[in-house]
């Protein structure tokens, strides 16, 4: 027990040392007075549920708040929990059973973030699909296959690779999956999420492996436990993960802008 405590503390330190992020995003902002004052647009305290917005709606925030849109394409081995990661980030708590995803599923999550001194509303489009159903589309709808496959990857801002802490082979697949997406013209950012993470218990993927990976690929691994039951509003339990995703997207943009400036 005590061993794992130490190692996870070590992980906490090593993140700061190895990954060079801009730290532009205030991680605990949601708990601040300003964050709390906007919370009701995203979380309904009376029903204890996240607010969900259809395509005709958006959170009724003051117009002074800037909105930025990103498209994130989810990849990962079948069964690791891609759908449940998106579902958890969208605010659904509790295990609803494993069902294979059929077709393409798009989920939009609105997330407010404090960057330096400014509040920015992130509109994150998560595209979730299964390799099987893409193959099936190919088989049954040959004409549209190319279009559909492009539709998923077209103008992608980030590729989110999901693996499971329960399954070492799904973790070993991650570099290969990341490489398979590097051919996309837009040079999408990389996000890596590990699901089924349980603190204080032995996992198939160890913290040492995670550290090595982060060191080698300069990518932070975001840990999620989608089945965790929570006593406080669920939104606080995934704010860290969502903030990290936004940070990755933001840094990619900043890098892009700075390169443009240099070229000029």
């Amino acid at each position, binding site marked *: 027990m005590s061993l794992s405590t130490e190692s996870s503390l070590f992980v906490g330190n090593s993140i700061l040392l190895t990954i060079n992020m801009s730290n532009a995003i205030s991680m605990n902002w949601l708990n601040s007075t300003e964050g709390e004052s906007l919370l009701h647009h995203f979380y309904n305290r009376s029903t204890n549920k996240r*607010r*969900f*917005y*259809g*395509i*005709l*709606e958006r959170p009724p925030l003051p117009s002074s708040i800037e909105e930025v849109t990103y498209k994130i394409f989810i990849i990962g081995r079948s069964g690791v929990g891609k*759908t449940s990661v998106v*579902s958890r980030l*969208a605010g*659904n708590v509790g295990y*609803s*059973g494993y*069902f*294979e*995803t*059929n*077709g*393409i*599923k*798009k*989920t*939009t999550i609105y997330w407010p973030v404090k960057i330096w001194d400014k509040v920015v509303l992130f509109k994150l*489009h998560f595209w979730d699909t299964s390799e099987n*159903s893409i193959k*099936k*589309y190919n088989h*049954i*709808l040959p*004409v*549209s296959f190319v*279009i*559909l496959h492009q*539709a998923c990857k*077209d103008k992608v801002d980030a590729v989110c690779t999901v693996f499971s802490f329960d399954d070492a082979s799904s973790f070993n697949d991650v570099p290969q999956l990341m490489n398979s997406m590097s051919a996309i013209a837009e040079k999408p950012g990389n996000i890596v999420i590990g699901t089924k993470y349980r603190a204080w218990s032995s996992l198939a993927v160890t913290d040492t492996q995670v550290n090595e990976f982060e060191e080698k690929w300069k990518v932070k691994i975001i840990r999620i436990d989608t089945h965790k039951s929570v006593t406080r509003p669920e939104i606080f339990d995934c704010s860290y993960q969502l903030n990290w995703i936004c940070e990755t997207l933001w840094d990619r943009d900043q890098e892009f802008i700075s390169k443009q400036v240099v070229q000029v």
Partner: protein
Amino acid sequence: MTAHVMCLTSSGGIPIFARKKGEGDMMTFSKMASLNGVHMFLKSQNMELLNTNMPDTTVVWKEYEECITLIAIASGTTKRVLNQFLDAVFSAMILVVGIDDIKNPRNVERLKRDLRICNPIIDRLLECLDVGDRISTKTDLVDLTESIMCPENHLLQACLEAYVECLDSMYGCILIHGSLSVATESWWCLDPVERKLLTIAATTEDSCTARDLPVFLPNKSPNVAFRLVSVTLVNHIEVLSLCGPTPELSEVERLAIQCWRSSIDILRAAEQSYTKNFPFNISLDSGILGFLLVNYRIGKFVLSRNPQNTKNRVTGTHRLDILRTFYHQAVETFLLSEDIEECQTDSTETPKRLNQQENGQKFEGAKETYWCSEYHKCHAVKEGDQVFCVLYSATVPTHTMRLITHKTLKTLLADKQLCW
């Protein structure tokens, strides 16, 4: 109180899947093998085993396309419902993989894997069975489309027509909390089971913004797939459509925003009708606890509870379960018995069965039926294509039930804006 359904290959008896509802363990392999064995043995003797009755449980066997055997075991429900249920399960299998892969599977393991995506659909069909467990959150019927009567329906209909035209499609409908508000004419021409399965397929998972999934239509197009595209317009309201290879999902979304942008207030107002499922300006008699209105010719229903009686001891969902039981046990037996016989004599033409009995010579079933129990009374009346079942509190005198039922039905049907 449990319900099981299992699927095996007819030739080899290889189990393909098994699902269950309620408490108890999964069906063991040996039990499955025995159940299949009886059916197979009788088949070799040129006999077809249809069903068997135990004191509180019914088993139904059915073979499809001479390649798949489905077996259902359930307590508390009728054989008619179980037969419909098995038909729906087989249709769900066609919906996800198409008839060709079922008839000529390249290998069984692959078919098994491909059929895994219909598990959530089959689970939802199991929820439609009336096994008296009282845990289901929604009362649903296997072969009927669950609908909602919003006063805004006539406005939504016009928007929907314009939207499907933009998509170059003919099939579209709007779901409010999973219940159908309006649909295009072509959507209503789909088989009731097709409509049911499409609705389920689009709503099996948690809320998402847009979905695009390949579907085969069990009756209309079992060989060629369509795309079922659903878009969430405002929270809890989705618009569904069946498309060909184009337009792609992002384009569908763009068109949806364009077509529906100006109707956002109408959509939000329509959402307010949910849980009551009929307009606020219609008030029900205080003796009414809830009602079930079925159009059995088109195959749709509205289920509602009277908001005036929410303080009643019996909980809302339980109440609606009583109406479902009454519908299956009494209404289908006495009021719709004629249709059942038709359906059994020529099962090949099930979708058209109801249109065929136009000659007024035959006995058309009873016009009214009722139940009286300690706490409730149920009364049903058949008028034209409608069957209207009402749940009353026990204090309502038996002879006044029919008066109230007729009056209420008249009020509901008089409102043309509901597009019923």
